[in-house]
């Protein structure tokens, strides 16, 4: 008995190293993570210059770039971490949601590496990864907590009940918040990528200049809708053009951004109040938006809610967050098979 306990303890104390791979959209990324919490390396090869040329992500080109970049990115992540593949305990990979052709590159590559080195393989949900980015920067953060996930493809309000276990409270019924940012940015001539460009323009504009609608879904207090807001911006621009009225794009950006922020803050605070949550975690690409972070921080402070968000580098797509998520699945004994496939429309906890 004594002997056994000792063995178990040694096992517990052994460090676990996860190599993670992410290729769901336009970043080829790899990272090495210790014990799910510590970043040993975090390599991201961005394709943004290429896709900017096309005014948005071109799936086929993204996939082609992933194939070119993936081995050097993984090799760099291992060498930055000072680890060889033999020292890695498990391989984690994003298998959805995302662009199918892009996902497939990372999935096929990670599977082959895990297979050749006889390492356990963990399939990771991209959005769960975004949430887990917070675990890398806040050592004391533990579930359960409320999370607001906002990106180019997703707008979710959820509770992370335990590591890897989510309960979805609400989601967008139409456009994702980040998608609305991209569309409005295009309409006011700011171009791609919309998020950072809107935020920059908004700093020079008046958020109260135009009253864009804050859409609600009747009977679903935690769901989102952004298409009405987006249409209102487009209508405003069209009407101004017809009347030959000059438009201040900074005011449009600021007013639109404020409308999005108001909706996100409102839903998050409603859920926190209703469900007695004292921790709010912000995740996803739009978490990089400074105005959103400030608004959520202020609202949380007022209600004595602990507010967590990742630093900008961990808001964008990266593999460190995938490694953090993979670690907890690995510790639970979950393993993916060699038939792991990319699932572009993978759902979170449904």
């Amino acid at each position: 008995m004594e002997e056994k306990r000792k063995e178990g303890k040694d096992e517990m104390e052994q460090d676990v190293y996860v190599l993670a791979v992410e290729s769901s959209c336009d970043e080829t990324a790899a990272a090495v993570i210790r014990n799910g919490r510590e970043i040993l390396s975090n390599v991201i090869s961005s394709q943004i210059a290429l896709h900017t040329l096309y005014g948005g992500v071109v799936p086929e080109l993204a996939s082609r770039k992933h194939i070119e970049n993936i081995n050097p990115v993984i090799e760099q992540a291992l060498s930055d971490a000072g680890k060889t593949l033999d020292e890695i305990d498990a391989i984690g990979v994003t298998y959805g949601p995302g662009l199918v052709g892009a996902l497939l590159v990372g999935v096929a590559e990670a599977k082959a590496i895990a297979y050749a080195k006889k390492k356990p393989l963990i399939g990771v949900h991209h959005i769960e990864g975004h949430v887990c980015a917070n675990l890398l920067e806040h050592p004391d953060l533990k579930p359960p907590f409320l999370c607001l996930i906002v990106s180019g493809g997703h707008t979710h309000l959820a509770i992370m009940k335990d590591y890897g276990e989510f309960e979805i409270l609400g989601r967008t019924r139409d456009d994702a918040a980040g998608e609305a940012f991209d569309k409005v940015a295009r309409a006011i001539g700011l171009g791609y990528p919309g998020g950072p460009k809107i935020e920059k323009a908004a700093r020079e504009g008046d958020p109260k200049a135009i009253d864009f609608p804050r859409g609600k879904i009747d009977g679903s207090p935690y769901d989102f809708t952004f298409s009405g807001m987006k249409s209102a911006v487009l209508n405003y621009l069209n009407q101004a053009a017809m009347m030959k009225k000059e438009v201040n794009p900074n005011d449009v950006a600021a007013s639109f951004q404020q409308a999005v922020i108001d909706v996100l803050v409102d839903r998050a605070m409603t859920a926190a109040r209703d469900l007695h949550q004292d921790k709010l975690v912000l995740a996803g690409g739009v978490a990089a938006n400074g105005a959103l972070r400030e608004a959520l921080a202020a609202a949380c402070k007022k209600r004595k809610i602990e507010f967590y968000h990742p630093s900008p580098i961990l808001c964008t797509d990266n593999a460190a967050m995938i490694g953090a998520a993979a670690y907890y699945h690995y510790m639970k004994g979950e393993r993916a098979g060699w038939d792991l496939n990319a699932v572009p429309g993978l759902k979170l906890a449904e």
Partner: protein
Amino acid sequence: MSKILGIESSSLVASVAILDGDTITAEYTVNHKKTHSQTLLPMLDEIVRMTEQNLEDLDAIAVSGGPGSFTGLRIGSATAKGLGLALEKPLIHVPTLDAMAYNLYGCGERICPIMDARRGQVYTGIYRFEDNTFRTLKEDCAIALEELLEELAAAQEPVVFLGDGVPVGREKIAARLGSLARFAPAQMNRQRAASVAALGAVMYAEGKTETAAAHAPEYLRMSQAERERKAKGLPVSAEENQG
């Protein structure tokens, strides 16, 4: 004598094979549904276990490098690149159409693999074994089947066709070439990893390898977005845009 793993996933066919010297130790070929992401690695695992292989013993990994289905090629490519990275083995980029023609080793006639490339085109090339040497008469390319048939008709020589472009173009081929056209039988009329590995071994002996990091498929065709920009005379890559 070399030991080569062959990987083929450029079309509907998924296939893996292990070549040891002059023996195919195992080959697993499926021509069913396009689910290569789910089938390719389990198929490899199956033959490795059944024939008690140690992947560390491989000299190189030969992969069917294109043209073909963009996604299919990348699944094979990423699999080969991952294996190469993990095992620290070189890759051999075997052109898909060359490997297909190699199915018909020693055939005296012209060999013409055709793959359905959609948009009214086929991926094709023309090959022949001359004096026991494998020669390329026409480099792999994407052209209209009609254009290929004109070229073949002008040569006035018998041609053996194979590939998934045959069922689609059979009537046109027969109408244009008549008795000059022959069609390879079922055991050799599609891609197979054994041919990729066997031609890969020849290339390996000639030193034609590349690193796993450097390998990328040869698509023989730009993406639609690139074609549209090029048609407008606009730069198609970030590098070109800067230069």
